Structure formats: structure tokens, C-alpha cells
């Protein structure tokens, strides 16, 4: 009984929030140009399904492209940074500094370099999402038990052996944990870039509809964006649980 309730609770809460939103809009007679009711947003979704489907698709693939580059680059850089203390020390301030730059500020530069289109969106998604991957992979390597390293070194293991046998498998839960965070950040990056300068994508759609005062359409796009984010998060949460079950069972827990 209790466990069914627990399983249903995400759905129930979502429906509840929509109902509350709908009721509030009607009860207080909120102007639809300020906050449209969800029913109006859904109606807009039906009415404009063609452009919305197109823009959702563009946002999804640019996000995934940027995210894919971030994963490849993030893992590579994380391994390099985790490999040696010197590199770790040298690169860390640079990376922190880079991560502190708001990516909105970079988008105009990217647009100047690559022109309006998908490339700036992909690059922004990449730039915003690789950082947690690097940090987590490097942390996974850096927190290796020193005694285990001693055991292997006393057997004559080289650094590469230790990395392959222990370091890299050990970073897996850290890596998969970071992917959940990174994918949602990648959406943020894409949408920011699309809002600033693009001719397709949900961010572009939101900016365009907003300037035309089509608030239901704005909210329809926002809801689709949220949906894409949740769906991708769920995919990576599933992958995480599937591939690193040992980490949840043993005392070693992943950093998110």
C-alpha cells in the first residue's frame, strides 16, 4: 500500500501542481499575458505542435551533441588531472576561474566566431557541462585508498596498471553521478545560447513568442524543455544505477 503510494507520488505531485496552478489562475483571474493557465499552455502545445516539435528536436540534438563532447573531453581531462598531483595543482585554479565565467557572457563571442546557428549552442552546452565531469572523474582517482595503491606497487605495478585496474573502474560511480548533473546543465547552455542568438530551438521559440506576447506558447515551450530535461536525467539516473550497482551496495558512495 505504502510502496504503491511512493511509486505514484511523483505523478500525483506533478498533477497536483498543475491543478493548483490552474485553480489559482482561474480563482484570481490572472491575465493570460502574465501567467497563462496550464490548460492554455497545453492548448498552445496542440495548436503549434509542428514548430514546437521541430524546435524541441533541435534543442535536444544540440544539447546531446554538446553533452557528448563534454563527456569525452571531461573524462579525458579528468583522467589527466587525476593522474598527477602536479597537473592537478596547476590546472585547478584555471578550471575554477573558467567555471566562474557566466556562460551567457561567452555566447556573443561564440556567435561572432561561428555565426548564428547550432554551433554556438552546441559549444555553450559543452562549456557549461564539462566541468562537473572533470571534477568528479579527478575526485574518483584522487580518493583512491593509499593502502590499496601500496599493495599493488609492492607487487611491481606501474602507474598505468594501477589506473586501469583500480583508478578507472573506481571513478565510474563518480562519472555516472556527474552525468546526471551535466545533462541538465547542458540544456541550460543550449537554451541560453538559443535565446541570445539562434534561428531554431526552444530557446529561440521562447524568445520569439515572448516578443510577440504569446505567453501560452512561451509556457508550452518551457514545459517541453522541462520534459526533455527530466527525460534525459531519468536516462542517466537509470544508467548510473545499472552500471554501478556495486557502488550503492558497498560503502563507497558516489559524489553527485
Amino acid at each position, binding site marked *: 500500500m505504502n510502496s504503491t503510494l511512493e511509486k505514484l507520488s511523483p505523478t500525483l505531485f506533478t498533477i497536483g501542481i498543475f491543478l493548483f496552478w490552474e485553480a489559482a489562475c482561474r480563482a484570481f483571474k490572472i491575465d493570460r499575458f502574465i501567467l497563462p493557465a496550464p490548460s492554455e499552455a497545453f492548448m498552445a502545445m496542440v495548436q503549434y505542435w509542428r514548430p514546437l516539435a521541430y524546435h524541441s528536436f533541435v534543442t535536444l540534438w544540440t544539447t546531446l551533441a554538446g553533452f557528448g563532447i563534454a563527456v569525452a573531453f571531461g573524462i579525458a581531462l579528468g583522467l589527466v588531472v587525476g593522474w598527477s598531483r602536479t597537473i592537478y595543482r596547476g590546472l585547478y585554479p584555471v578550471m575554477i576561474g573558467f567555471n566562474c565565467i557566466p556562460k551567457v557572457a561567452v555566447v556573443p563571442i561564440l556567435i561572432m566566431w561561428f555565426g548564428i546557428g547550432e554551433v554556438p549552442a552546441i559549444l555553450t552546452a559543452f562549456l557549461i557541462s564539462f566541468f562537473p565531469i572533470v571534477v568528479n572523474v579527478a575526485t574518483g582517482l584522487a580518493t583512491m585508498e593509499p593502502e590499496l595503491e*601500496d*599493495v599493488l606497487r609492492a*607487487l*611491481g605495478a606501474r602507474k598505468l596498471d594501477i589506473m586501469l*585496474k583500480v583508478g578507472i573502474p573506481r571513478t565510474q560511480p563518480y562519472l555516472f553521478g556527474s552525468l546526471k548533473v551535466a545533462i541538465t546543465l547542458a540544456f541550460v547552455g543550449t537554451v541560453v545560447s538559443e535565446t541570445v542568438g539562434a534561428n531554431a530551438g526552444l530557446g529561440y521559440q521562447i524568445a520569439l513568442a515572448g516578443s510577440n506576447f504569446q505567453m501560452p506558447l512561451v509556457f508550452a515551450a518551457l514545459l517541453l524543455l522541462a520534459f526533455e530535461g527530466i527525460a534525459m536525467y531519468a536516462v542517466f539516473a537509470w544508467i548510473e544505477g545499472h552500471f554501478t550497482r*556495486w557502488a550503492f551496495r*558497498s560503502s563507497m558512495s558516489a559524489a553527485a
Partner: protein
Amino acid sequence: MSASVEIGDVTLTYRGVSGGVLALKGTTLNVRRGEFAAVVGPSGCGKSSLMKLVTGLLPPDNGSIVISGAKVTGPVKIAGMAFQNPNLLPWRKVVDNVLLPLEIVQPYRSNFRREKKQYREQAEALLKTVGLGGFGDRYPWELSGGMQQRVSLCRALIHQPSLLMLDEPFAALDAFTREELWCVLRDLWQKIRFTVILVTHDLREATFLADTIHVMSARPGHIVMSKTVELPRPRELEDCFKPQFIDIVHELRAKIGEVRQQ
């Protein structure tokens, strides 16, 4: 097959931000081939550091370490090690944890793929001798602390090392499990006769297992007493209550109390 260890007048300093720590000073210690040596001493006196020197994981500032006639200049590549924490790899099955050294040490390393089946059988057989027959396909988290420590012992022994280094391997276990594992170690050693250096805080453990017990001073550590245990072998747990055994424990205890005062 087994190794001899000669530690000659070694000094070790850890250099840190807030000045150096002199961990060992003038430590001299000899272990014969096939001997079971125990090292006891107050906490922080440099026992673990000594293990790192012997296995070549750290270089000494002064003095020399010679294993089977060869001076140690880097990681020794032969030593099996086990610590207080079993440190098993949670993503590997028990048997694959035991096999880990064979993926690193020659000549097993080159043959590993080809001979994997035979190596697995060896690992299973070794697990059986420590009372873990049939547990090979479990994961470490499915095992109790004592069982994990047995696996850790197997991992330290699978490549038939000529030198076994144990740093408080039983410290985290309850008294009964600990005594059980004493017997496991005793039987393995009796059978294979590798050279053992065991660091422990448990004087009964040292007396029960060792041929020679070396007592270290407080930091900077050096050997202040080497006691040969004359008790006949094979020793039984019952022997722990014999007057001769208790006398040795008393003597060690008094000595450690003395060095702790200084």
C-alpha cells in the same frame, strides 16, 4: 623460495609543510628466510613506515635494506601485503579480487589470459583453505569483515610471495574471529614457509604466531628488544594459557610500558 630481510641502520624523515617528522632512527632488524617476525611498539613509532621501507615504497634517508642479498632501490615486486582495512575492489567478485596480483606479477601476468581457468582454480583452492570455499562468486560487500580479511590474506598470498608483509591485519576484528584467523595464518605459513613480517598491537597475537618479536621504541623508532619465542610448534590456541606464554606476554608488555614512559 622465501626471502631474507636485512634492515641496516635506517633513518626516515617525513618532510612536511610544518617541518619534518623523524619517524625512524637507527633501526636495525634482520629476518631469516622463512622466519615469522613480529614488530610491536607504541602507536606512531614508525611500524607502518618500516613496512613501506622494506617493500621499497619509500626510500630511506640513510642506511640500507637488503632483501635476499639484493639492495632495495624501488618497489620490490614480490611482496604480498595486507592491512587492517581489507581494501577489496567492490566491483570485482571475491575470486577476481584474489586474482588481482596475478594480473600484475610476472610470469603470471603474461599467461593470465591463457591460464585464467587454472588460476581461478588455484584461487578457489586458496579461498577454501581459509574457510571461504564456495564464496568466490560473491561480491565483497556480501561478506562480513572477517571474511573480507580472509580474502585480503588470499590476495596477498596468491602469487606465492617470498615475503608477506602484514600491517595490523586483524586489528579490526572481534576476538573470536581474530583467533580463528591466527590459526588460518599459522597453517598457511606452516605449509608454505614464506617469510613474514607482522606488525601488531596484540602481544598475544605476536607471541602465538612469531618466531621472533621485535619491540620498537617511541618515535623516532628503533628496535629496543628482540625476543625469540621458544614455544614449540605447532602451537595451539590452548597454549595461550600456558605460563611460559603468559611470561613472554608480560615481558613484552613491561618493555612497551617502559618505552612509552620515555
